[in-house]
């Protein structure tokens, strides 16, 4: 290509539009509100991955950071509704100025998983995480994203130099006696094959993790990933249309038991951050209703079995 645009260049992020109407989109009941996700830093991140499905980055503030008091209000509401667990995501949630107090406040109510790129985890942060882990009655789980076992594999998608920074963060956690789960996006074919899983586990062990865990995630072809490769085709959307979901599929998809809280309100799921139509209300109570799988990316959850849960 003669005039290639750097993929990290900032282009306007367009709203995610539905591809099916309610009549043809599969319905998903909310079986129970088990999990509450917090888009803690909105779209603010310290890196700008080329496959980011919600186009986060250092200058991406279109979904603002959540006010800590607002997070606590939602925690109160979630607790009253009997929520089972909580997730912090972003962007990079550790960029939130009240990240650690919010971790403690959340852990006082239930188990918490933090999705991070690991870059901000220095010795102090790792020690802080260890204290939170030890003190809490409920489980604190960390999930660090790393997209390869080498800089050659990881850096083209996550950014130059990020492999070394992420691995350093994981090693800090290992030194503090914590074993984060490593999540790997299958940005190249074959990354999640059995042999690759085995070598990734061995690699995780080589970083000092006593209890290594690796979770592979399929690509979501929206956001920046749509520009890196391509979006969803009409034939893929067709696999979703008029589908009656089996009860196992309903149980497996995140939207049957979770909601996402952002500075803009309560939304269907963490994937549909840029879908204005996925906003269900201003409170969790307003979001407790069935939804329809109207977006092309829903195909990845229904057909490829993606779950954002650890």
């Amino acid at each position, binding site marked *: 290509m003669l005039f290639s645009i750097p993929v990290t260049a900032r282009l306007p992020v367009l709203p995610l539009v539905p591809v099916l109407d309610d009549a043809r989109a599969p319905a998903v009941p909310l079986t129970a509100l088990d999990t509450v996700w917090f888009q803690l830093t909105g779209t603010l991140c310290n890196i700008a991955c080329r496959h980011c499905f919600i186009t986060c980055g250092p200058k991406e503030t279109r979904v603002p950071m959540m006010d800590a008091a607002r997070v606590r209000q939602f925690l109160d509401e979630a607790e009253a509704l*009997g*929520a089972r667990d909580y997730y912090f995501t972003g962007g990079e949630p550790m960029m939130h100025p009240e990240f650690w107090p919010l971790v403690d406040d959340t852990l006082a109510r239930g188990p918490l998983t933090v999705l991070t790129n690991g870059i901000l985890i220095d010795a102090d942060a790792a020690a802080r995480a260890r204290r939170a*882990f030890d003190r809490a009655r409920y*489980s604190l*789980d960390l999930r660090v994203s790393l997209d390869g076992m080498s800089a050659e594999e990881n850096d083209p998608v996550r950014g130059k130099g990020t492999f070394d920074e992420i691995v350093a963060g994981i090693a800090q956690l290992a030194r503090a006696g*914590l*074993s984060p789960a490593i999540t790997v996006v299958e940005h190249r074919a074959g990354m999640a094959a059995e042999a690759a*899983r085995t070598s990734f586990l061995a690699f995780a062990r080589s970083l000092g993790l006593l*209890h290594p865990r690796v979770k592979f995630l399929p690509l979501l072809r929206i956001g920046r990933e749509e520009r890196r490769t391509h979006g969803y085709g009409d034939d893929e959307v067709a696999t979703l249309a008029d589908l009656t979901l089996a009860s196992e599929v309903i149980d497996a998809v995140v939207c049957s038991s979770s909601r996402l809280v952002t500075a803009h309100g309560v939304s269907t799921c963490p994937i549909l951050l840029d879908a204005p139509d996925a906003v269900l209300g201003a409170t969790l109570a307003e979001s407790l209703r069935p939804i329809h799988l109207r977006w092309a990316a829903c195909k990845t959850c229904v057909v490829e079995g993606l779950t954002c849960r650890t």
Partner: protein
Amino acid sequence: MSNVTATGATYAVFGGVYNNWLALEATLDDAARRGARAVYCLGDLGGFGPHPDRVFPILRERGVIVMQGNYDHSIGHDLGDCGCGYTDPRDNHYAQVSYDYTRARTSASWRPWLRELPPTLRASFGSQRVLMAHGSPRRVNEFLWESTSPDPFVARMMTAHECDVLLVTHTGIPWQRRLADGRLVVNVGAIGRPANDGRRDVWYALVHERPGGGVDAELVPVAYDWEQLAAAMRAEALPAEFVETVETGWWTTCLEILPAKERARGRY
């Protein structure tokens, strides 16, 4: 944990037999010695260990009140997998090895009995409404771990299912918690496999009636002839990883499903 003075009846409750007929006999002997009025089994009779047909007659002859776990449902209906609810490929691999073994060696004559076991049990201990479920009251293969079952969540489920005492198994690690309002949740653990605590004993629960109608639970370790079990597992060519668990008390498989807090306590 053993200095409990019972004034009312005591009930024994266990789960996860996993073909371990030796631990089953030891548990029933222990419960009898402690004066259990009735004995309940919360399901998952097969998997992991050797010779599945040995546990059924023991349960029947000794009058254990048995309910159905996901394993019993799958074996009873001759399904292709155990429906354990694992998500990791390695966990699923070992689950399939043990399921295929159990399925091939469970006599067809036991399948109707397994199929017809009730999915939940209700009882009254003292004045308490007791609900027994395998995983959770809402899903047979839901994992209720101590570190991922916060009080409001447990309370919501117990209110929805109208019980004062909730007894579950499925995870294989025992725990109990009294909610602020006095309701009690107990994961009775499993008697078929050690609890990933580095000891070879297995665990079950005794529920004691108290004056005034309340109940307390006591988690009880049981020693059994693990060397005989390990030898039988080797003779049946079951995975060496399973035998290691019996011999060390540390889990070697089905680890990915453990929450970070429970996993950190184990060796692997």
